[in-house]
């Protein structure tokens, strides 16, 4: 561990900031901050792009060094790119269509152009251990190839069309270490990339802030849900998170069951609510304390997404003592549920309706599942545990 004090730890990520959206983005920032507080010489190497939703050819932030929550952040400018060409190829990937070799080149070359970031990595490679997050962006693809022996990849891998591009085979093979969020993610890495023996592969998980308090009574009072049972969804509302499926299932459940339960939605993103509402309450974007209050007040938290590499929201739900209902086709969230015994899962409408009924009819049992989930989070994902695991991986990276 002493050798770690002699080296800088550089998180390399396409965008970075306090209020930028995205679970992986927030997890990156909190991990960098926690490792810095633990005494490591942590820096963030990123671009001047605002966030995922901005134009990746636009410099929103000023290039140079700044400090965010105690962590030095080096920003490098991006160059103009052919956004239209990238969008055309990306559209094909989003619709699971195959790409020609030329289209693959367009995809990676016209994504993010940050040559000065790569120059910096090249010039200072021996001073740093680099942590690239996540796998799919050009900052990772080009950056990790410069000094693979001093690079770890935190892939945040999902089973998706991007992951099946041959482009990423070398990346996963060359880096010194893979830092993974769940056993299911490790299995997916093995299936898709067959990493070489000797590569460090550590299932670390992600740290979760556990010091929040939610007031269930306040939420029910403020939002007029005093005696009404409700299922909560919190997060971006978009097809990628499978919220249309949740709305469809809830609409049918509400019609067929005659239940007085409500589905409460929290978070950004436009959604097409079914006509007549069907027991759906859309609160949109709410203050963060209201979100914690909602977790505490909910009878059940539902995450229909199949593309998760960790999922902070189910951890937050468990910390509030609320059981979860996840999509059984998502190996990661299902794994969390099974390990924690903290909730149920569904793979079709019949299971969705039956599991909702089962838990709403048994509030004491539901609370026990929530308590088991809380214990799982505290036993595995408190910051001191995660920081210790990161230190171990980084120390192993320094051994020849």
């Amino acid at each position, binding site marked *: 561990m002493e050798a770690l004090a002699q080296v800088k730890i550089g998180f390399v990520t396409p965008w970075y900031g306090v209020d930028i959206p995205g679970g992986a983005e927030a997890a990156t920032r909190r991990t960098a901050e926690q490792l810095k507080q633990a005494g490591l010489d942590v820096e963030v190497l990123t671009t001047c792009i605002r966030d995922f939703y901005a134009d990746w050819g636009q410099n929103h932030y000023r290039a140079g060094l700044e400090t965010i929550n105690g962590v030095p952040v080096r920003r490098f400018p991006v160059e103009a790119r052919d956004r239209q060409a990238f969008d055309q190829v990306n559209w094909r990937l989003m619709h699971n269509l195959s790409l020609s070799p030329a289209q693959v080149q367009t995809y990676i070359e016209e994504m993010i152009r940050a040559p000065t970031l790569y120059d910096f990595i090249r010039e200072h490679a021996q001073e740093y251990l680099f942590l690239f997050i996540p796998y799919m962006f050009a900052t990772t693809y080009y950056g990790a190839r410069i000094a693979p022996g001093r690079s770890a990849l935190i892939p945040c891998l999902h089973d998706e069309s991007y992951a099946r591009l041959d482009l990423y085979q070398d990346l996963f093979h060359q880096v010194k270490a893979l830092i993974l969020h769940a056993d299911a993610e490790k299995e997916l890495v093995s299936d898709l990339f067959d990493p070489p023996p000797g590569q460090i592969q550590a299932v670390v998980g992600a740290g979760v802030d556990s010091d929040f308090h939610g007031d269930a009574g306040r939420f029910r009072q403020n939002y007029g849900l005093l005696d009404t049972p409700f299922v909560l969804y919190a997060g971006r509302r978009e097809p990628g998170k499978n919220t249309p499926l949740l709305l469809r299932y809830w609409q049918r459940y509400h019609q067929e069951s005659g239940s007085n339960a409500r589905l409460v939605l929290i978070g950004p993103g436009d959604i097409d609510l079914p006509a007549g509402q069907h027991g759906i309450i859309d609160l949109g974007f709410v203050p963060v304390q209201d979100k914690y209050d909602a977790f505490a007040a909910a009878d059940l938290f539902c995450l229909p997404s199949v593309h998760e590499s960790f999922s902070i929201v189910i951890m937050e739900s468990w910390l509030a003592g609320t059981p979860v209902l996840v999509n059984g086709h998502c190996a990661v969230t299902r794994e969390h549920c099974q390990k924690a*015994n903290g909730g*149920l899962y569904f*793979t*079709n409408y*019949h299971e969705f309706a*039956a*599991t909702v009924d089962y838990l709403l009819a048994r509030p004491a049992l539901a609370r026990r599942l929530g*308590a088991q989930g809380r214990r799982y989070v505290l036993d595995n994902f408190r910051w001191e545990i995660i920081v210790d695991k990161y230190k171990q991986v980084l120390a192993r990276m320094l051994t020849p």
Partner: protein
Amino acid sequence: MGVILGPNRVTQIGKEAKMANSEQEEQVDIEAIMQEIREQILAKKSALAPGGAPALRVRGERFPPEFYEHLYHAGLAYDQIEVKQHVSRSSVPLVGPLLQWLRGKLHELVLYYVNQLAVQQIAVNTHLLQALNILSEELEKLPEVEEK
């Protein structure tokens, strides 16, 4: 409703241990709940199916959990093979409606025979599932074979 305690339950050694591990001792096993729910779903499906549906065992000790999960999904899907008509709209000017009508009639004819096959396939699926279920129940009764 009794609480379902599963394999994660901690053996009670003594009062002190019980106090110290009270949370773990009362560990609720979600897989046991899922199996109970899945049995209810299949029973409901069986009650609604004309002529009934194969009674399937979706929990047991003999096989890995994946076996019972596959059996459950087969129980849900064994009769979901009827084909519905799907005729795309014709954009040909003037004769478009006529073309669409002809396509519809052609599809109806194909579906008439395909769905007859589907009925036969459902009968085969039912027998296969029943046979698989009997086999798994019989194996469940046998003692574990000791390793030589």
